[in-house]
């Protein structure tokens, strides 16, 4: 091997990757939603956890979510390289080698689970480990490339953080925590299928069997509407299990009503009109944030006022 060969090898490894590129492997935007929903789970749970331990637990959950993001990028590097939305991720951009992303994600997974076990309890740590396993193995490795129900079932991984947060404080996972799980679980299909409607070409190119390119646009639009209706109803559930007051019920009803209205516009839109789908995608993010923020406000008011 010549010096030139060594130099070429060096260029193909991570010599130009900065800490920011490794941070990007953690999918910070997804991580922020995980942290927020887990935090709401922690605040909503009955029980007392030292504020510093709660903060460290939240950090462990964030790192766990980030680790599963890195492992997902490791596994999906081939399809990330053909989709416009994911083309600039650190692996397809040639900044971080796949093997390093795998090692980074694996190491952080173990670290996050161990840290959560130390800071809170084994139930929360076990749930976090299961979340990472479900996202990486069940969703990324198995479902994503094999069925249009990929994001429906895989959505369970994204829905678990509030249960993990609840368990971290209460050392239990009662019905109320699963109500929060259900809201995110039912939110996932209309959110991702709205995206898939106007990014259909990307998914087709990558060979991912998303609902629009398997069952067609119309079937997807119908399912988006159906899931939005069920989601709007499930969004009211925290009131009926006694977690929150009528203030939340009104807020959730208004938000859910708007979600259903936007999904109705998606259903009624012409085949080439993706405007309503883009609007629904944007609003769905706000919906989830607002519903969880309303629960958070309710619980904080109940605790401090």
């Amino acid at each position, binding site marked *: 091997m010549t010096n030139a060969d060594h130099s070429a090898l060096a260029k193909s490894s991570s010599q130009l990757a900065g800490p920011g590129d490794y941070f990007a492997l953690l999918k910070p935007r997804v991580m922020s939603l995980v942290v927020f929903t887990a935090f709401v789970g922690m605040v909503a749970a009955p029980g007392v956890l030292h504020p510093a331990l709660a903060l460290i637990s939240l950090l462990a959950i964030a790192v766990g979510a980030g680790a599963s993001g890195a492992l997902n990028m490791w596994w999906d590097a081939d399809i990330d390289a053909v989709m416009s939305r994911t083309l600039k991720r650190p692996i397809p951009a040639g900044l971080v080698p796949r093997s390093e992303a795998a090692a980074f994600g694996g190491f952080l997974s173990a670290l996050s689970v161990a*840290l959560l076990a*130390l800071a809170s309890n084994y139930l929360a740590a076990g749930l976090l480990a299961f979340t990472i396993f479900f996202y990486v193995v069940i969703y990324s490795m198995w479902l994503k490339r094999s069925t249009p129900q990929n994001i429906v079932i895989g959505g369970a991984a994204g829905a678990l953080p509030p249960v993990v947060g609840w368990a971290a404080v209460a050392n239990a996972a009662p019905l109320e925590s699963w109500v929060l799980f259900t809201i995110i679980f039912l939110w996932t299909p209309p959110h991702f299928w709205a995206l898939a409607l106007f990014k259909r070409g990307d998914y087709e190119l990558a060979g991912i069997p998303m609902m629009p390119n398997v069952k067609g646009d119309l079937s997807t639009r119908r399912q988006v509407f159906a899931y939005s209706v069920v989601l709007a109803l499930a969004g009211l559930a925290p009131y009926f299990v006694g977690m929150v007051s009528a203030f939340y019920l009104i807020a959730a009803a208004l938000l859910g009503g708007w979600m259903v209205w936007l999904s109705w516009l998606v259903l009624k839109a012409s085949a080439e009109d993706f405007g309503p789908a883009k609007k629904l995608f944007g609003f769905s993010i706000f919906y989830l944030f607002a519903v969880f923020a309303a629960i958070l406000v309710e619980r904080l008011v109940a605790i401090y006022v």
Partner: protein
Amino acid sequence: MSDEKQRLPTPTSYGLTPEEMAMRKKRNLAIALGLGVFIIIIFAVTILRIGGAVADRSF
């Protein structure tokens, strides 16, 4: 074959460019920072978990 091997220069480094060296330094600092934070967190968790119970034992 063995003659050819002897003629090839033995590489002593990857010959990093100044930009690559700067990035490596940044990565090293990030690892050091991460390690420092990890140590502080484990120490804090230990102290908080033991809490007042450290005195509740028979000597």
